[in-house]
């Protein structure tokens, strides 16, 4: 089974600072990590390989330093990696990114399943995974919390919903995006770390992919960011104190006032 895992390198912070002048994320002095949701995608890919055989190829689009994210994936069991990197890819929105990744996956050869994290912690759009599937014209299941079975070229997976989960069957090749409930990512092994150091990671640019210049980078991005700002912090709530019976009464009357009940 040929498994492709798409990952992204993101800043290691839950509190992304925004440059007020340019409206872009401040990356200086912030350590880069593999997008936490992509860790689950890597782990699921490696687990599928352990179950069904085959190989796991990790792909990322990003600046040359995203190489370290790919090596981290190799240290956790991925077999090889491709760095999709070119100055002309810069400024890509989710549409251009989906196009570029789809071109790279197509160029990488035959695949059975593509796995992505449900979203990246910096942009939080959750659009690129499904976007790649659309560009490749293959089915996808987003928010997968469990792969139930893969048999006779059919995959059955559970899609997490707010009120439960859906069980969905798709023919392969297909793409899934995964949520953190799907597994517990392993730590790297020393042998994995050593081989990740030595791994040859090819870098593919627009030329190698045969990408349409009008569909990549800023040019290929219809999204225009007009303004970016940090929302004001939520004001502190009201804390009830006192005896339970009194607090319950106060709570009920307050909820009635607010017309919640």
């Amino acid at each position, binding site marked *: 089974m040929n498994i492709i895992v798409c990952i992204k390198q993101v800043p290691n912070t839950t509190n992304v600072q925004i440059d007020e002048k340019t409206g872009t994320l401040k990356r200086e002095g912030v350590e880069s990590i593999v997008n936490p949701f992509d860790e689950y995608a890597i782990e699921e890919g490696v687990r599928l390989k352990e179950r069904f055989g085959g190989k796991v190829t990790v792909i990322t689009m990003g600046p040359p330093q995203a190489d370290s994210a790919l090596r981290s994936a190799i240290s956790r069991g991925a077999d090889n990696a491709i760095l999709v990197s070119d100055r002309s890819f810069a400024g890509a929105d989710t549409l251009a990114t989906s196009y570029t990744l789809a071109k790279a996956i197509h160029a990488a050869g035959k695949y059975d399943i593509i796995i992505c994290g449900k979203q990246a912690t910096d942009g939080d759009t959750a659009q690129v995974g499904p976007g790649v599937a659309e560009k490749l014209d293959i089915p996808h299941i987003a928010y997968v919390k469990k792969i139930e079975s893969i048999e006779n070229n059919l995959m059955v997976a559970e899609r997490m919903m707010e009120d439960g989960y859906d069980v969905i069957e798709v023919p392969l090749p297909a793409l899934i995006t995964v949520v953190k409930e799907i597994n517990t990512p392993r*730590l*790297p*092994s*020393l042998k*994995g*770390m*050593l081989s990740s*150091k030595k791994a040859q990671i090819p870098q593919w640019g627009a030329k190698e992919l045969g990408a349409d210049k009008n569909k990549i980078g800023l040019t290929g991005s219809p999204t225009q960011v007009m303004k970016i700002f940090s929302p004001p912090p939520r004001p502190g709530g009201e804390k009830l104190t006192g005896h339970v019976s009194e607090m319950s009464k106060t709570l009920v009357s307050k909820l009635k006032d607010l017309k919640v009940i």
Partner: protein
Amino acid sequence: MEYFLTEEQQMMVELARKIANEKIKPVREHYDENEEFPWPIVEEFAKSDLCGAYIPQEYGGLGGGVMDLVLIVEELSKVDGAISLALAASALGTFPILLYGNEEQKRKYLPDIASGRKLAAFGLTEPGAGSDATALKTTAKKDGNHYILNGTKCFITNGGDAEIYTIFASTNPAKGARGISCFIVEKGTAGFEFGKKEKKLGIRASSTRELIFNNCKVSAENLLAKEGYGLMIAQATFDSSRPGVAAQALGIAAGALEESINYARTRVQFGQPIASFQAIQHILADMATEVEAARALLYATSKMMDAQHAAGKKERITKESAMSKYYASEVAMRVTTNAVQVFGGYGYIREYPVEKMMRDAKITQIYEGTSQIQKNEIALALIKEAAGKK
């Protein structure tokens, strides 16, 4: 301080730190409180390849040396000096095979230890033979192609949980110390049973049990080197393994130092963090200086041992090995005691980690030769060296 570790060594440290912080820290209280063997963590060690760091590549290890083992044990012990012992004590039980095993024995036992599938343990101590190890009473009588073992070992770390044991027994009691031999005995061998599990002051996540041999029949193929080589094997093993105890002690001390600094910066008394008081600052300065001195001595010793091994030299490095273990374990006791002092009343209760570190530190002054035995070794080496010069 910068010790110019190789890239591989930096990776080992990074990985050991990840395991310690992500896997061990959340459960360390549980294993201490319940005196349980930390199997899930041992599985993490296995998956990470850390168990084979010091074992040659041809036997499934990573081909490192004493220094690599030391770095891993130190890093794990910063968080928990008892859980790290599952790995360190396995190394102690492995060194006799590594140093004196024949090709067949190495091929049979080392790969399982390197992969972490099996743990090893070292069986020397007996109720009447502690510091006076050569007074052991366990016997091994030759019987055709076998030896019949009889006797009882006590205080055996990993006892009951390990699969592979290196056991010292006398094949010729009339010869005393020169009649001791070393055998590999597998768990499950008929006549090999486990006695009581000890309840201890510290290192409570580590199992310490009696090993009981009652007409236990062991193949002659399991004899390491030759009959009568036991004492030599034990001495060479201790030369290689004492840095491991030193690393455990160093790790515990370094962990206590870190906890103390963090606590001193946040604990407010008299309207200011206690780190602003010179009384506390001087304690921290002493702790840090001693920890760094212990580390420098241990790393220098370990690197020297590995360099000598790589050069094919067989000279024993007893003196420096004993110095490292003696110094690091004394430092561990002082530093952890001071850590409890810095924490004050909170240091004495189990909600905070330093009282456990103090309890765990004590054993490092005792096992694999007490501090006093280390001083005997050091002094003996000094006298021998001086006599040799004349």
